[in-house]
């Protein structure tokens, strides 16, 4: 086998796809020709380097950031997605005209109908921190119109808010969890392992709260196994316990721990949610 043919078969030799006879011939050519031997050694070095370095881990928090965005998107193939897709086909001028007509309609309607005050309903604005309507995910189905009497009312006109019925009334269903995924308070567990999750879980128990997944379903640290090594976890506690929970959650930076920097989110149902990034 001449040098040209042998050179063209170096890759195939490294891949191990040559027949035994052909591989022997290329080997002999390599031993006869120092340049060919250098090329072969160099290619082998390059291939070994690529295999050795191999696939890289995705950056820390990659999946959390991705899933946080995904959770705010309409369910693919769902009604919202189809409506959005259809909406893209409508010209902007038509949308602007429809919006204008809607605004005029609302203004006319408000002038005709006097305000109907409600004595025992709570204004949404009284909540200590607002959860933006954009990106808010409602994860449990059943809600009923009721009032929250323990939150003081303020100047904005009163309106009803949706809150969950007591858990005791619907033992098989969870109260709705509203999670503002666009502004999560993140508490990362990247090296603490499941012991940290157990601590957070017991903190939730102590404060009358619970750990849930992105759908508001309860989870326990035991669910995080090797098969399911990654989860988005939320600690939900009553608003009254939010400060205590915030103080108890600490972030490890090297050997020292410090309080988490991020503010927590408030829920519409008088609860607070802490997003926890867990990667065991």
């Amino acid at each position, binding site marked *: 086998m001449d040098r040209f043919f042998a050179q063209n078969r170096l890759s195939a030799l490294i891949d191990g796809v040559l027949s035994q006879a052909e591989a022997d011939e290329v080997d002999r050519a390599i031993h006869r020709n120092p340049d060919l031997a*250098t*090329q072969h050694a*160099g290619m082998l070095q390059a291939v070994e380097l690529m295999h050795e370095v191999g696939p*890289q881990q*995705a950056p820390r928090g990659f*999946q959390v950031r*991705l899933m946080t965005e*995904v959770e705010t998107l309409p369910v693919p193939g769902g009604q919202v997605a189809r409506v959005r897709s259809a909406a893209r086909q409508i010209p902007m001028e038509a949308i602007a005209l429809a919006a204008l007509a809607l605004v005029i309609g609302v203004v006319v309607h408000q002038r005709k109908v006097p305000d109907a005050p409600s004595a025992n309903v709570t204004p949404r604005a009284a909540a200590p921190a607002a959860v933006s309507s954009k990106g808010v995910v409602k994860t449990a189905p059943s809600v009923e119109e009721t009032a929250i009497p323990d939150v003081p009312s303020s100047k904005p006109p009163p309106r009803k808010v949706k809150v969950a019925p007591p858990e005791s009334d619907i033992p098989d269903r969870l109260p709705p969890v509203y999670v503002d995924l666009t502004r999560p308070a993140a508490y990362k567990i990247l090296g603490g392992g499941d012991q940290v999750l157990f601590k957070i879980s017991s903190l939730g128990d102590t404060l009358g709260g619970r750990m849930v997944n992105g*759908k508001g379903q309860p989870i326990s640290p035991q669910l995080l196994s090797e098969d399911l090594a990654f989860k988005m976890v939320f600690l939900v506690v009553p608003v009254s316990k939010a400060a205590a929970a915030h103080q108890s959650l600490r972030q490890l930076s090297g050997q020292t721990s410090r309080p988490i920097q991020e503010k927590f989110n408030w829920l519409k149902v008088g609860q607070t949610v802490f997003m926890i990034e867990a990667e065991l």
Partner: protein
Amino acid sequence: MQVLARGQVETDLIKGARSGDAEAFGELVRRYQARIYTLSLRVLGEHDKAEAVAHETLVDVYQNAAHLETPLDSYLYRLVLDRCDLAARDSGAEPRDLEADPDTETDGEDKGAQLQTALNGLSLTFRVAVVLRDVIELDYTQVAEIMDLPIGTVKSRVHRARLDMSAALTMATRMSPEGD
């Protein structure tokens, strides 16, 4: 048997993702994120761009989950490469030598940088072929399918890319202080 079971799990996950199950999609992400990120990193040569491409690709996949194709890995790699192509055209610059990512710093960082420098010397088409073959470790048939090229062309590109990388690595060794 285990391979069959694993294949079945993936089929179920794809079905779930197609019907909008975010948890099934999340599990698929967990399985593929490293390879998707690696492919974009080695093709683009920059951590930030690679992460952006991987993120955008997967968001796009979720939004079009109803049209997920199998084999899933080939489908994902094609989408990543399309975005890499766009990103490379947008930047209009050759990839820089890779700097250490503080988030993923490891003992093999030097070798990673060495590899990236050698890859950066290749044209995009050769780089893609050799990364799919030797870094992601796909067989030639799959690489040909992803790149939509005849298998002979792929083999030829991989061969050429390995030769060029070999020369670049040899040069780098001679120029390094240890190589003097």
